[in-house]
């Protein structure tokens, strides 16, 4: 049992290490996220102008509010989001500000979801807290200047974030599995595009074009691809390379959904992006391996290979200093 546990721990360490990102790139991501939250804030104030009768909070913490909060409270919430986003951008009290930003975004979203429908933006709200754990405040931050420690990112925290994202995507795939998307006779994607077309033929740039495709095989493959793209990540997350590939596949899918159904999921880029903030050496593994190979075969000048000493000079004159030795000494 002990051996099994230590084996599992080693495996987690190995996967976590493969998820480790470049702290500077992560810091740039932090700044971009903070600016996005500042410049394109989600509007949490509109509920304040609606009649109380419209308020119907879903099961959960929003039920603590039996009325729509007054407009000034919602304005204060919006202001607090802006303030924490500013702190996150500057990297000041980054960890506390990031957690506060997550809490404020969840409360704000809860307000706007209390009119009958829960939306799927929870992952965006969780990004600041998750990335604070990964270490997005370590570099290019006022905190980093004050502390002066070497910036490091936690691969394990990003691995955990991957599991959260993969599970969230699985929760989108599972209801589809249960409601006919697998059935070869039922064309689900075709149905939703046709519905959008019936509502408004030009609702999205490619809605009407898609309706010209008359191939059951094409539509069914699209359904199955959707299920696969959303569902397999719960397994792929344990293989960082595959997981990144899965996220790239899914990104093309989000673009497709936008172009055919007009559903804008661009916020999801903030959920996926951290997985691609790899150190430069990991971006081009083949190129790096090739460079190492070339370096290992390159002859090294003799005078650089040997220390400048009598012993070395005698070794050289005796013809014992070979290229192989030179390579080994470097």
């Amino acid at each position, binding site marked *: 049992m002990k051996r099994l546990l230590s084996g599992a721990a080693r495996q987690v360490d190995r996967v976590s290490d493969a998820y480790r990102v470049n702290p500077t790139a992560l810091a740039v991501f932090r700044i971009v996220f903070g600016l996005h939250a500042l410049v394109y804030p989600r509007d949490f104030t509109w509920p304040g102008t*609606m009649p109380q*009768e419209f308020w119907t909070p879903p099961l959960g913490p929003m039920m603590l509010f039996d009325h729509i909060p007054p407009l000034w409270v919602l304005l204060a919430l919006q202001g607090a989001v802006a303030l924490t986003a500013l702190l996150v951008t500057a990297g000041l009290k980054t960890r506390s500000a990031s957690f506060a930003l997550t809490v404020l975004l969840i409360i704000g979203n809860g307000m706007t979801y209390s009119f009958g429908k829960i939306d799927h933006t929870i992952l965006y709200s969780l990004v600041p807290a998750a990335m604070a754990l990964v270490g997005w405040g370590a570099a290019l931050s006022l905190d980093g200047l004050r502390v002066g420690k070497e910036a490091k990112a936690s691969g394990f925290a990003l691995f955990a974030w991957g599991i959260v994202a993969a599970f969230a995507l699985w929760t989108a795939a599972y209801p589809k599995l249960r409601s006919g998307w697998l*059935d070869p*006779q039922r064309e689900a994607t*075709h149905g939703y595009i046709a519905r959008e077309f*019936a509502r408004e033929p030009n609702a999205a740039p490619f809605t009407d074009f898609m309706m010209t495709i008359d191939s059951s095989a094409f539509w069914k493959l699209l359904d199955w691809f959707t299920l696969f793209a959303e569902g397999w990540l719960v397994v792929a997350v344990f293989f960082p390379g595959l997981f990144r590939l899965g996220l790239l596949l899914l990104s093309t899918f989000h673009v497709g959904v936008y172009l055919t159904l007009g559903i804008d999921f661009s916020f999801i880029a903030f959920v996926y992006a951290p997985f691609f903030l790899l150190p430069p050496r990991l971006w081009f593994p083949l190129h790096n391996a090739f460079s190492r190979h070339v370096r290992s075969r390159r002859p090294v000048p003799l005078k650089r290979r040997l220390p400048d000493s009598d012993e070395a000079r005698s070794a050289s004159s005796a013809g014992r200093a070979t290229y192989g030795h030179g390579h080994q000494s470097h």
Partner: protein
Amino acid sequence: MPGFGAAPEADGSFSFVVRSAEIHYADADPVTVTPEQLFEGFASNQMNPTWDRVLGDPGDLERDAEAMDWLRERATALSVNITSVPTDLSVCWIDTEIEIDDGAVAPATCETTDIKL
């Protein structure tokens, strides 16, 4: 990723609800409005659920004075170039089916709720 919902039937039919409303006046032609127009300012995903809940069968919800004031205000704001006061809001749900091959909507009758403004 949105969860969407159930797949269409194997015969290619897919249920579809069309929502619209007509604002009536004492001495002007009615004006047709969509959920997007009536609930302008709402988050887009909250429009249809609120439409169904707030404008549905009065048995589901007692519209109070504040809600009625809000509806009157919206109806007036949507009465562009009409001087008379809105009198009624006739809310319509067409529960129909579409044919997924061509997006054709099957004819269906409108289920109506009338709200005195």
